[in-house]
């Protein structure tokens, strides 16, 4: 009989935010992502350095400590290409600490798009290029190959599972959303419908969000959450089941939940308590799919993500500003790629980051709080205008090659 295992998966990412890029910058300045003279949330270097202090450094230190202390402790990470680029430039010690984590052999890296994009839904060829670019980056830095895939914002549907299966992935991650699971539990390994070898891990969103979203919420009935209570919940959830998939943003630790909420101590203490029970352990994502047989098939015809109360793509594609800018940026694909200009291609791909479209979200109600917290812009309309101005500048640069992108 296998032990129960927590599958802890943390996603680390920082976009290149667009600065206040006006209509008068277009054709003159190509430095969309260089808000370095700005102090108000567009300064990517400043933001990266700040979050490195608040989250990446202390959390990696804690993870190292836990790995040293508990032989059964394991985690999985996804590190986007644009995130890795930024820590290479502005926090090389953080990159080194990630390398040390991976070297333990108990930290697995998860495959995804380099640019944190939604390319899968707009251009399959472009999507594959970005996945390959990310594989290469991970190979270069960590010297490893990845076996499990996650798409941006945990977006998932049957087509994606089929694609990942065809491309040899052993596993894929998705949200454990109730309308999909119905009476079933997310605490098992599943098989995506119409696939051969790949397995599906579904996020236990209740237990994940207890940490990621509710931990410091004083209006939550369970606040303040103790490691004992949480350990009871997870043990209860795991009873007679295989796994508990705790998937969340890496930045939950120290950035979304600040140090003074007690998040680090809570987590350290919880890991100790969980492993105190000899029936309990941790699995990385690929271990989990290799250890357990699937208990059933899961079909997701429509795309499911891990965002907002709808768990769909509406946070990125729900309004016409988002759909317009997505259409325009992907329309440029042929001209940009044909230009062969590596800087231009890189800037164009950075503009595909889902974050830009998230900032244009106008669902300012229940989810709005989260959106407002994550947006550096004073309004989604500003985010849209800066984006359009930068997109036009990409077109302007294309004129030098093929007179592409007419407008």
């Amino acid at each position, binding site marked *: 009989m296998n032990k129960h295992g927590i599958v802890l998966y943390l996603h680390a990412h920082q976009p290149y935010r667009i600065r206040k890029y006006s*209509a*008068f910058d*277009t*054709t003159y300045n190509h430095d969309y992502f260089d808000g370095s003279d700005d102090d108000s949330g567009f300064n990517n270097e400043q933001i990266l350095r700040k979050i490195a202090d608040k989250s990446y450094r202390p959390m990696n230190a804690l993870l190292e400590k836990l790995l040293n202390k508990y032989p059964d402790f394991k985690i999985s990470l996804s590190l986007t290409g644009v995130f890795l680029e930024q820590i290479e430039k502005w926090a090389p010690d953080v990159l080194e600490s990630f390398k040390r984590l991976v070297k333990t052999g108990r930290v697995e890296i998860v495959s995804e798009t380099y640019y944190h994009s939604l390319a899968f839904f707009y251009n399959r060829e472009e999507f594959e290029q970005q996945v390959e670019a990310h594989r290469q980056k991970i190979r270069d830095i960590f010297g490893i190959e990845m076996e499990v895939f996650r798409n941006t914002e945990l977006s998932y549907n049957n087509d994606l599972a089929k694609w990942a299966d065809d491309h040899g992935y052993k596993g894929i991650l998705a949200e454990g959303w109730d309308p999909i699971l119905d009476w079933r539990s997310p605490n098992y390994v599943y098989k995506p419908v119409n696939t051969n070898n790949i397995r599906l891990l579904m996020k236990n969103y209740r237990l994940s969000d207890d940490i990621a979203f509710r931990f410091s919420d004083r209006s939550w009935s369970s606040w303040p959450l103790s490691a004992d209570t949480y350990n009871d919940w997870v043990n209860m959830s795991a009873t007679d089941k295989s796994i508990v998939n705790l998937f969340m943003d890496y930045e939950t630790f120290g950035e979304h939940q600040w140090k003074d909420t007690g998040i680090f101590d809570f987590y350290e203490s919880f890991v100790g308590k969980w492993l105190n029970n000899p029936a309990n352990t941790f699995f990385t994502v690929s271990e989990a799919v290799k250890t357990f047989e699937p208990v059933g098939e899961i079909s997701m015809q429509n795309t499911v993500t891990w965002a907002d109360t709808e768990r769909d793509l509406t946070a990125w594609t729900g*309004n*016409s500003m988002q759909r*317009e800018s997505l259409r325009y940026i992907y329309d440029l694909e042929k001209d940009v790629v044909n230009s062969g200009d590596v800087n231009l291609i890189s800037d164009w791909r950075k503009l595909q980051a889902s974050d830009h479209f998230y900032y244009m979200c106008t669902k300012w109600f229940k989810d709005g709080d989260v959106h407002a917290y994550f947006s550096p812009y004073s309004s989604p309309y500003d985010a*849209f205008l800066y984006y*359009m101005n930068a997109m036009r500048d990409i077109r302007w640069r294309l004129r030098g090659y093929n007179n592409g992108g007419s*407008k």
Partner: protein
Amino acid sequence: MACYYMSKALAAQGASIDFVVPYSAPHPDINWMRIHNATGLDPLSKYSGLGAYDSKNVATGELSKADAKNLKDIRGIQKCYVKYVEKLVKTINPDVIHAHDWLTMEAGMRAKTITHAPLVVHVHATEFDRSGSDHGNSLVHEIEYQGLMMADKIIAVSGITKNIIMNKYGIPGDKIEVVHNAIDPESLNDGYVYDGRTYRYLEALRADGYTIVSTITRFTIQKGLTFMLQAAAKAIAQYDKLMFLLAGDGDQRDELIELAADLGISDHIIFTGFIRGKQWRDAYSVSDIFVMSSVSEPFGLTALEAAHHGNALIITNQSGVSEVLDSIYKYDFWDENKLAEQIVSIAKSPELKESLQKGVMREYNRISWNDAATKMMKLYNSTRKGIES
């Protein structure tokens, strides 16, 4: 700005002017009249903090209850202004009192009561225009109504404004004289040379055969921009090589950005935000067509500025400036199909565009402040005769 050129032209025709402004600032370039500062306020504060020309910010209190010492409140400034004028008219003995719009109407009425000099009320915009609806601020409406009733003569900046004064305030037409605003082309001949740099993206598209359609305005309901965007979508559906430059800012901005996206034409529209100086001049210069889409525009000076820069003009019948120009396209602000048709026909026909551009270039030059001043001097004299007989 209108008052600056108007007073200059009046002085040139022999008028002796005492001009009371609601702020304090040196005007070293003005030597044709005496300027009186009714308050110690900085002139910029009327645009920023108080928004004095924006009647939405007016409390619906009574003037008698306003505190003349509270200059943070527009009613306080008005009271201060009234007190200043009351004192001033006792020393200068005016032949005629000329009050502009609701902000100075109360002072005008007080001055008439004290001096028995005739009151001329000059209407640049009514509260109906400013609010873009039949509502607006009731206190402002009341002040306007009182001022219009008590005036010996009323100057309206257009036939449209005259009609509003007759129809909405019930003032008989023979009390109202239309004196259109003008433009001083000299004010725009300041050595400005268009270098094609500011809107390089648009210039490149122009070189590719695109037509640039612009409007430079405040983004408020009064300006009818949602109709213009609907028309833009219809025009683009017929003829793709169109770009729209929407220069300005205002509380309707987000709505317009969203509407353009809903219509699927964001790609054809550039929002610049508020512009001034070279960016403002160049916005005219980069344009082929200038649209004034106002739902209610007493005059619309920007149309004359656009004409000066060689734009073909499309102006709503609800804009006063359309009364003084012939070589323009006109439409009713709600008529999206017609505006779309007009834009497309100009964009498709270089001959038509050129004839409109050249025609309006001749016409705008004919409209002068001197002619306006001549009309006003005649009107002053008629009021004086009325009193004496």
